């Protein structure tokens, strides 16, 4: 919490959790996909489903997926803008196990064919958590440049990734490791203090045993 979390932020109403947080979930998800979205399946859970319509949660999520921030006055118009940009949107409902009441599952298809499934929660005051990526634990805030590497659970992959970061002068802020079972699918989630060069992210994508690399850049690429 900074002083301007108390007096601020500037945002489109009515709710920091159901509106501003929802915009942020959409925005971070689009950044994670790394390209414009062709089709989005949006499944709402809990309080997002129950009171979301009255809070504009649906419009807010779509606005974020279009690349808008929480203070963008076009948020109420996001459905129209999505139609103009030929972004296909489907809403549904889902009952996610053990999820925060303000949660959503997004299935995103990018314009070049990239796909991403995200489960995210709005945890209050406009703060969010990306809980899962493609069904595997993720658990990060989206406030830092974040690298998510999916790999086979075998020795050496953590070293490959962390050596690359060291070589590029990127300091690790936090690091988490998960796997579904021994020798199965594993994931590392690394929040960094600096941006990772895109060439290095691409290099990781080509390594054997690494199945998917998702990178959240905090460099602003706002769409107009």
């Amino acid at each position: 919490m900074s002083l301007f979390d108390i007096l601020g932020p500037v945002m489109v109403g009515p709710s920091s959790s159901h509106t501003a947080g929802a915009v942020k979930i959409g925005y971070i998800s689009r950044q994670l996909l790394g390209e414009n979205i062709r089709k989005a399946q949006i499944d709402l859970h809990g309080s997002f489903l129950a009171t979301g319509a009255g809070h504009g949660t649906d419009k807010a999520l779509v606005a974020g997926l279009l690349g808008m921030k929480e203070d963008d006055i076009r948020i109420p118009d996001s459905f129209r803008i999505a139609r103009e940009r030929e972004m296909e949107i489907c809403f549904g409902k889902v009952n996610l196990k053990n999820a925060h009441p303000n949660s959503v599952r997004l299935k995103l298809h990018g314009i070049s064919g990239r796909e991403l499934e995200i489960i995210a929660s709005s945890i209050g005051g406009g703060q969010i958590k990306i809980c899962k990526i493609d069904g595997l634990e993720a658990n990060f805030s989206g406030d830092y440049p974040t690298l998510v590497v999916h790999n086979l659970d075998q020795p050496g992959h953590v070293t490959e990734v962390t050596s690359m970061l060291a070589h590029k002068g990127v300091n690790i802020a936090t690091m988490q490791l998960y796997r579904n079972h021994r020798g199965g699918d594993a994931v590392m989630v690394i929040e960094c203090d600096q941006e990772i060069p895109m060439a290095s992210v691409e290099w990781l994508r080509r390594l054997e045993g690494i199945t998917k690399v998702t990178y959240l850049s905090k460099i602003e690429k706002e769409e107009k």
Partner: protein
Amino acid sequence: MFQSVEGMLQLGEEKGLPLWRVVMEDDMIDRSVTEEESFEMMTQMYQAMKEADEGYDKDLQSSSRLVGGDGAKMEQAIGEGKVSSGTFIGKVMARAIKMGESNACMKRIVAAPTAGSCGVIPAVLISMEEKDGYSQQKMIEALFVSAGIGEVISERASISGAQGGCQAEIGAASAMAAAAVTYLKGGSSRQIADAAALALKSLLGLVCDPVAGLVEVPCVKRNVIGAVNAITSSDMVIAGIESRIPADEVIDAMGEVGSLLPCSLRETSQAGLATTPTGLEVTERMTGNGFD
């Protein structure tokens, strides 16, 4: 982040700095920014508040159709000389309602400290500036004072309705605004703290019971009591009246009351106004309008 109002006042005394500067310098360290950057950021917040105030649209309606147009009614009544509480308080009331309505209608506002309580601080400060003609510099300083009080409330208690009920939102906003007005009126640091204490005391126990879970009823109109209470609290202090309970202790009491409130009265819409027959009717109607 300051842990106590007392600590904030002491630091000011030790360094020989006014309260607003103590708060600003803390922000400079916290975000590693310069004096100019910190001051500019607060200036932008005030600018955004003013734009939101001027951008009010009386024709907008919220999605539930419960909210919209009331700010304009209030203004009209002031114009016709019908308001018992006088023109100044009338204007404060109108601004508080307008901002709350703008928020409910998906317009851009400044969460201060929350979106639901976004009308309190701008209603008070913009109306004070209009009445007494303070400089821009002075207004921004007042905002730093209010943010400092908000910081302590957030640290020691809460500024979230889900955690502490409405007292943590409208109550906190009212205390923050009371501190700012007292600063504008030339009150001492002690009086600033006392005004915040008085304002919060008067709203202690206020529950969060929004109809259909929306930031509309009773949130919009509660911004009025938060704003008016800030001004009367400051007036008491300027008249020489003291808060018998120090600010930090009042904030702790608010935190305690908040944690003692049943879950049903903390933004879950399971009791209070939300479950009145009329409240339930609206909920029923909104569910029909939902995603199902």
